[in-house]
């Protein structure tokens, strides 16, 4: 056999990709020996627009458009950073409502990722099933916020809409339905033989490498690295609503799927706790002043840690808004995982990372 390598491109337009990203795989027969990625297709220049075009009170809605899937985490991190600079405390009810939407967003994002992984592994029926059930969550989100994807729910000082009794009842009903479905997925993902061929032992990352490449999110938790920002910040009362870290030890695609499924269960539990123990109070507190100084805020997006660095000088325009998105930080780890895998598995591995390129390129 000759040692000649072939270059196979994946993207920028590909049936298995939602977003434009180009990978150039260097293959030796079927094995991938080199990866080159181009992630800049979606670069729009939001960081600059935040400092030149929009005033600080509008940016919360602009940064939500960085990414449609974790929109809520983006606007939440930015808003909290600004609230830190302005000083002043928001009400407990608003905090709880923020967590509620954050967790709902995580549920639907994880479900999308799971279904997409199934589709890329060739299991179309499972894709349809999970996407169908995901509508239950989308329905609640629409009831709660008024929109399906871009919520614009969080404003500086609180949230924009209150939760009424009927909506809360509907949410609890739907979440119970989702819970039953998730148990059936866990059964399917652990016991289905053909899925296990595609998922078990494929695309593995060791714990050592996860530390070395600073992996975050479900990717890191699937190899046993206990990193979850919900555990590391005290701004939102995650421990009060019953947050539990979910980890797994295998590090392969199956482990990532299991971590996501367990996180969905945990999030469902948290949502229920919030709805049952929602404190009374106002949903909005007016905050005055202009942001001055610098603040750094981290939150756990569905894909991992999201960081906002905001610097203001006391005027309506900010000096700097730095967005560090989860997928961006994980790209070195991604490239490392692809090494030594079969080319045919590449789409499934890629989907199991749950990459969000519009986050990455901003």
């Amino acid at each position, binding site marked *: 056999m000759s040692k000649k390598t072939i270059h196979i491109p994946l993207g920028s337009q590909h049936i298995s990709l939602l977003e434009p990203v180009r990978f150039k795989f260097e293959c030796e027969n079927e094995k991938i020996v080199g990866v080159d990625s181009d992630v800049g297709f979606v670069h729009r220049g939001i960081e600059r627009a935040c400092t*030149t075009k929009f005033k600080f009170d509008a940016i919360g809605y602009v940064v939500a458009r960085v990414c449609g899937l974790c929109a809520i985490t983006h606007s939440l991190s930015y808003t909290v950073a600004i609230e830190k600079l302005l000083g002043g405390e928001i009400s407990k009810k608003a905090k709880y409502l923020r967590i509620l939407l954050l967790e709902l967003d995580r549920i639907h994002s994880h479900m999308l990722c799971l279904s997409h992984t199934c589709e890329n592994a060739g299991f179309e029926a499972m894709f349809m099933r999970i996407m169908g059930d995901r509508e239950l969550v989308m329905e609640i989100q629409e009831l709660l916020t008024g929109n399906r994807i871009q919520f614009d729910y969080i404003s500086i000082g609180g949230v924009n809409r209150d939760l009424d009794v009927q909506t809360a009842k509907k949410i609890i009903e739907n979440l119970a339905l989702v819970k039953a479905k998730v148990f059936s997925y866990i059964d399917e993902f652990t016991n289905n033989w053909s899925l296990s061929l595609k998922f078990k032992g494929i695309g593995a990352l060791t714990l050592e490498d996860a530390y070395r490449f600073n992996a975050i999110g479900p990717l890191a938790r699937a190899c046993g690295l206990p*990193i979850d920002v919900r555990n590391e*910040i005290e701004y939102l009362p995650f421990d009060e609503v019953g947050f539990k870290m979910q980890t797994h030890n295998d590090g392969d695609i199956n482990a990532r799927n299991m971590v996501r499924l367990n996180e969905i269960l945990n999030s469902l539990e948290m949502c229920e706790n919030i709805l049952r123990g929602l404190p009374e109070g106002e949903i909005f507190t007016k905050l005055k002043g202009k942001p001055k100084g610098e603040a*750094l805020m981290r939150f756990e997006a569905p894909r991992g*840690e999201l960081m906002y*660095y905001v610097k203001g000088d006391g005027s309506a325009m900010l000096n*700097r808004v730095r967005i560090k998105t989860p997928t*961006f*930080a994980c790209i*070195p780890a991604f490239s490392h995982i692809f090494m030594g895998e079969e080319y045919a598995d590449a789409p499934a591995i890629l989907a199991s990372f749950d990459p969000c390129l519009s986050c990455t390129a901003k």
Partner: protein
Amino acid sequence: MKKIEVALKSVRDEIKSFYDYKKWHFLTLNGVALEDNRMQVQWIFSKYEALDEVVIYYAEIDYTERIPSLSDIIPSAIISQRELVDMFGVEVEGSEKGLYLDEDSMQTPLRSCLV
């Protein structure tokens, strides 16, 4: 949030002695434009399983200065270094341009923030 100022020359040694990859998590490399053609480069770290513990190493430099690469100490720094090169037009060892920007798009977009 703890901020430590370092000189650009000694940043490699400082971070090498500080960074324990099992304890600290490298968040990102950040640049902030200052007045008079200067900028601040920040290396941001957070501690695993600790509550709100963030350490920022920062250095203030001219746009003409060359920033040392940390990719041998922290492999994941390579991507943020490439971003910094694109966004501020500074020189970082071993990082080429073109992660985001094309030839005909605006160059060094974040440099002129304060104008």
